[in-house]
């Protein structure tokens, strides 16, 4: 049986892992390679490196880090953050990434999704979206897509954007709920369920996994195919194995060996 993936996410800033709190970097959480190796040993199903600064001078540091990490891992590695062009994607794939996640640049230029899918394959083209509930003038609430690390609101809405992304060739959708990010208040389950119902590619839940029940809910009520979490692992609240054993006991298919 296909198991549900548990994916530790390492937010990287100047070569160090940091803990994101509502999208601004604050606390240092360790050495990326050390953490990657530890998570691998704990049966992480994939890893994500997210370059949360991605200024030009820091991109080189990040690429070097991807290379050194990929040299030690035999599980899939996704990288994201500051990917703006097909050349950026190629550079990350050549450094050893298996998948590249695009976010702001895909909103600015949706053809980047097509270019990624045609140039490198849908299987390594991941569309990641930062989404926030925004109250409308008529009193309703809509899920708006945000860019630039969650700082800039767009007119786009999450569900249609996910559908368009898949039509353009994205092989996976990461839904990152800004409301919940880093505050450990849980995933936006309604948002997840809406996106999962609208697309036929895997959907990864991201943002706000603070307790084991949050992770379970993202899979059970949100119908996500995988969960991505950061803080819950970095400070050793739980090991990847703790999480997997808990979810397996509640009936979610998990790879434990």
């Amino acid at each position, binding site marked *: 049986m296909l198991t549900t993936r548990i994916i530790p996410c390492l937010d990287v800033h100047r070569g160090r892992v940091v803990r994101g709190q509502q999208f601004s970097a604050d606390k240092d959480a360790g050495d990326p390679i050390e953490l990657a190796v530890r998570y*691998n040993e704990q049966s992480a*199903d994939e890893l994500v490196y997210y370059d949360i600064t991605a200024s030009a001078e820091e991109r080189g540091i990040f690429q070097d880090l991807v290379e050194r990490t990929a040299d030690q891992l035999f599980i899939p590695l996704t990288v994201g953050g500051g990917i703006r062009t097909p050349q950026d994607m190629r550079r990350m794939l050549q450094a050893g990434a298996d998948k590249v996640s695009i976010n702001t640049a895909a909103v600015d230029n949706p053809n980047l999704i097509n270019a990624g899918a045609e140039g490198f394959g849908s299987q390594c083209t991941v569309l990641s979206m930062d989404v926030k509930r925004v109250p409308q003038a008529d009193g309703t609430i809509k899920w708006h897509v945000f860019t630039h690390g969650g700082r800039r609101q767009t007119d786009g809405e999450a569900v249609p954007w996910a559908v368009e992304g898949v039509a353009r060739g994205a092989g996976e959708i990461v839904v990152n709920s800004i409301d919940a990010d880093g505050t450990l208040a849980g995933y936006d389950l309604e948002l997840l369920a809406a996106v999962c119902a609208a697309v036929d590619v*895997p959907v990864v839940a991201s943002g706000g996994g603070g307790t084991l029940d949050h992770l379970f809910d993202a899979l059970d009520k949100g119908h996500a195919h995988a969960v991505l979490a950061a803080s819950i692992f970095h400070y050793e609240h739980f090991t990847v194995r703790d999480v997997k054993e808990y979810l397996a006991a509640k009936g979610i298919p998990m790879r434990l060996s």
Partner: protein
Amino acid sequence: MIAIIDYGAGNLRSVSRAVALYTQDYVVTQDPADVERAAAVILPGVGAAGDTIRGLERHGMTELVKETIASGKPYFGICMGLQVLLTESEEDGGTPCLDIYPGTVRRFPKGLTVPHMGWNQVRQAQAHPMFAGVPDEAYFYFVHSYYTDPDDATLTAGATDYGVTFPSVLAHENVFATQFHPEKSAAMGLRLYANFVAWATGVKSRVQSGAHTEP
């Protein structure tokens, strides 16, 4: 020497690193001469069937892959290195493949989440030296939207369930080919590389004697 065929479809770094854990006697190559003189061949691959076939043709590898398989050299196909062995693929509106084994590469049926992405189990359907040290129903990492449907069901050496039951390993004489990516499958995947190197170099696998430890 083991030749890892590079037909320009992407990064073979993780494949070569996996091989390098067990032997230094390998080459990642686009040169048909290397493949000809190699004792064993690995054909990795990600992406689309059409790109794979065109890539092989562009590098003058198409006939060579057929000759390699006919010659009896150990052949390890991975993902597209498995799919191209069949007659044709439904991908890209129909792509003729190498037709070494009659059969079709089919898209997963509608209603399933595609790609089939993540860790799934392989039920071993026949004993094979490549499975030495690999428990039945071990997990491997998959990422694909098409699966092989060979006419000859006895080619299936491993089966996996995802909406349909499909062959995740085909094996026949000197050929062992997997739909999953052993180089992305942690310790279990590395066992396959260890076993292939042992097979290619003709020494009894240390895995079989129980002396093997993962790096």
